[in-house]
């Protein structure tokens, strides 16, 4: 390998991954044939689970290494194109793969904040960070902060922030792994978590970044194939055209038309009125629960007694009245819970949300707040993208500054492929639901609806509220994840494609979890242990420590996940605001402003992170303070206050204190130019 040139290496990679992709498609076809011959879904699920994890294990073992540079930065020989794919897989998490299209289905235009935010951030990575970090050429992001600003304080804050954002994020990934594994194989959630953990460790344990890189490329191939097949099929089914991204405008126009019709449809209004009345009655009862409970109970008892006395009552009516008495909430607290739930039905009393309308709201002020939040969220997601250490770290692995620049382009290209498909999928699924599910008979529901409603009512719940035997839109509740999971069935594809989608989701979750775990373990082993505690440690010892920490962090993350902490989605969103407020100003000013110094960086990072955490603590309901929002900004976009706080503090404090010394000035010049003749090459 050592004598091989970079060009030969690139060629070889292309050959390997082409063969691999062909092999994977062949595997899917084989299973499809096996399904036709009678292989049961359960075994198809197992086949995908074990084949893909086995594959990652093989790549992981083949990439084992005892070299520090290979372990931390894949030997810095990952070509731009492949680094792009690896970054794509690293970036796209279980939430992107499974949740995003569903989020767009539910939120319509406003959900596009995630689409724009999670792609446009790469522009910032490209022009502000990637080429300069590559030229700097060390191992981690706290490494850059430590060298640029000098001293262990900045490095320590960097390590703390890196662990804070990566850990919340990795818990969400492992949660996703557990969910997918348990759903498609019938294993318990906790078992699924540990199977997933094994999957993560086989990728990274022996080969660090080198192994993670090559498995991420493999995982990208699987996840993009899995995402595309059902959408393309759905597009062919409705529009006889295999490029859904080009034609879903027509579907959107039809969906909009149908929304208008459904808004004024009398049957729809009937269902919505039922919900409205139930919510209003629950609300009234909640005002004086004790009296309402007594009154309801008396009414139920009276009714049962009346029916029994009534000679003309049918036996069914008697049974029903008795049953409703037996099911009557046994105490006030239980009744209260049921009313709280009924009160929530008010949300279902609203007409369908227009899919393409931007920032709907009841009045001008509400619309403007929605718009402000939309833009603030985009900014936080973008700046956060350009500050998440597990992504930035990937640009240390290219052979040169030139390739680092190209590589950001490829990264965004590969991410774009999925992200511009998700809105198409959401619209096509909505088209299907609005035109075919709505208006069908309850006695004759499409198979996918019946199947999924049985599996998990949080994913899909459907009930004949007004008793007319026909499905109204207001009678359907779809969970966010159902859209991607059920698309193969909506499109009428065989089970093997459903299992493929699950394998894709698993690949997305595993690849992101790999990158994150490695980031955390490396921050601890490289920055804390090697740079701060024992700078004379031998290579062998450094690697042993790195691998040991990886194992420990992975087990802790899996343990936390198996406790099923709530509000995971909030935590993921929070990670972006936290990263944006802590890292972004220090990294970018560190490169573009020579005057920025150590004290500026320390106070700026603390101020940014502090403001962001303070606002989240004060406003997010989970913490119980529930202070009023500033300018109506939601807690997930706390970075909108944290970023400027960080930048301003950094500038003011830097100007008040001494300029950085000559050595640091030279370091800045060093990173600004890909190659300065006459300077001694730094470690690269």
């Amino acid at each position, binding site marked *: 390998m050592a004598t091989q040139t*970079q060009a030969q290496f690139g060629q070889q990679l292309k050959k390997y991954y082409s063969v691999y992709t062909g092999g994977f498609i062949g595997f899917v076809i084989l299973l499809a044939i096996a399904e036709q011959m009678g292989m049961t879904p359960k075994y198809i699920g197992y086949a995908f689970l074990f084949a893909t994890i086995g594959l990652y294990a093989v790549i992981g073992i083949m990439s084992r290494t005892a070299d520090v540079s290979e372990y931390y930065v894949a030997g810095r020989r990952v070509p731009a194109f492949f680094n792009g794919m690896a970054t794509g897989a690293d970036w796209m998490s279980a939430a992107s793969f499974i949740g995003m299209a569903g989020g767009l289905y539910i939120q319509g*235009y406003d959900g*596009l904040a995630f*689409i*724009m935010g999670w*792609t*446009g951030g*790469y*522009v*910032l990575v*490209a*022009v*502000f960070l990637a*080429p300069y970090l590559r030229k700097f050429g060390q191992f981690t992001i706290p490494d850059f902060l430590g060298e640029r600003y000098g001293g262990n304080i900045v490095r320590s804050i960097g390590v703390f922030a890196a662990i804070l954002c990566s850990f919340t994020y990795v818990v969400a990934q492992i949660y996703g792994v557990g969910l997918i594994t348990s759903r498609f194989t019938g294993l318990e959630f906790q078992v699924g978590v540990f199977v997933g953990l094994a999957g993560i460790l086989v990728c990274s344990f022996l080969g660090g970044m080198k192994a993670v890189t090559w498995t991420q490329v493999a995982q990208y191939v699987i996840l993009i194939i899995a995402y595309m097949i059902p959408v393309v099929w759905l597009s062919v089914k409705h529009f006889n055209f295999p490029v859904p*991204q080009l034609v*879903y*405008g*027509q*579907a*959107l*126009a039809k969906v909009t038309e149908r929304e208008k019709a459904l808004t004024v449809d009398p049957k729809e209004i009937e269902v919505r009125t039922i919900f409205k009345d139930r919510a209003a009655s629950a609300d009234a009862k909640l005002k004086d629960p004790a009296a309402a409970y007594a009154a309801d109970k008396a009414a139920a008892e009276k009714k049962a007694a009346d029916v029994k006395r009534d000679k003309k009552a049918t036996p069914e009516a008697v049974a029903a009245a008795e049953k409703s008495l037996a099911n009557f909430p046994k105490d006030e607290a239980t009744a209260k819970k049921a009313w709280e739930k009924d009160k929530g039905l008010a949300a279902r009393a609203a007409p369908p949300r227009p899919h*393409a*309308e*931007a*920032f709907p709201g009841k009045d001008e002020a509400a*619309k403007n707040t929605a*718009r402000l939040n*939309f*833009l603030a969220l*985009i*900014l936080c997601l*973008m700046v956060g993208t350009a500050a998440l250490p597990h992504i930035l770290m990937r640009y240390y692995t290219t*052979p*040169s*500054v*030139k390739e680092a*620049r*190209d590589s*950001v*382009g490829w990264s*965004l*290209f590969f991410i*774009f492929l999925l*992200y*511009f498909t998700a*809105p*198409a999928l959401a619209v096509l699924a909505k088209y299907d639901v609005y035109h075919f599910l709505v208006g069908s008979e309850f006695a004759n529901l499409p198979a996918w609806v019946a199947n999924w409603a049985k599996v998990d009512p949080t994913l899909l719940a459907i009930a004949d509220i007004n008793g007319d035997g026909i499905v109204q839109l207001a009678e359907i509740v779809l969970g966010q994840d159902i859209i991607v999971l059920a698309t193969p069935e909506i499109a009428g594809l065989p089970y093997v494609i459903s299992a493929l989608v699950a394998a894709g989701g698993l690949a997305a979750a595993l690849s992101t979890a790999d990158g994150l775990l490695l980031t955390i373990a490396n921050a601890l082993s490289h920055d804390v242990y090697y740079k701060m505690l024992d700078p004379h440690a031998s290579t062998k010892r450094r690697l042993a420590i790195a691998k040991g920490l990886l194992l420990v962090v992975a087990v802790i993350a899996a343990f936390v996940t198996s406790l099923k902490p709530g509000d995971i989605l909030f935590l993921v969103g929070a990670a972006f605001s936290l990263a944006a407020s802590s890292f972004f100003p220090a990294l970018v000013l560190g490169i*573009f402003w020579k005057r920025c110094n150590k004290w500026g960086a320390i106070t700026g990072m603390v101020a940014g992170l502090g403001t962001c955490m303070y606002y989240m603590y004060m406003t997010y309901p989970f913490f119980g303070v529930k202070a009023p929002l500033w300018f109506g900004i939601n807690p997930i976009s706390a970075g909108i206050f944290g970023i400027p706080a960080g930048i301003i503090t950094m500038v003011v404090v830097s100007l008040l204190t001494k300029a950085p010394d000559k050595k640091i000035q*030279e370091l800045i*010049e060093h990173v*600004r*130019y*890909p*190659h*300065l*003749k*006459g*300077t001694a090459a730094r470690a690269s």
Partner: protein
Amino acid sequence: MQLTERHREYWRKNVRLTAILLAIWFVVTFVVGFYARELNTVTMFGWPMGFYMGAQGSLIIYVVIIFYYARYMNKLDIEYGVAEEDK
């Protein structure tokens, strides 16, 4: 090492390009987002324009910005003699 005037010029050009590209990025993200409701009154091939930009148009421009930056800078490196030597 002392930077020459040519080195400084290279950096100025880089900063200027960075500023221009960020201005484009800002417009297609925040200005287009701000006026999404107004843009939505125009419809093309079924897409209201505000929706189309958020779902596809702006994304394409992001990809183009990044590849353009890479190409321009890689050429600038050679022009100003700061390109890396082939390994």
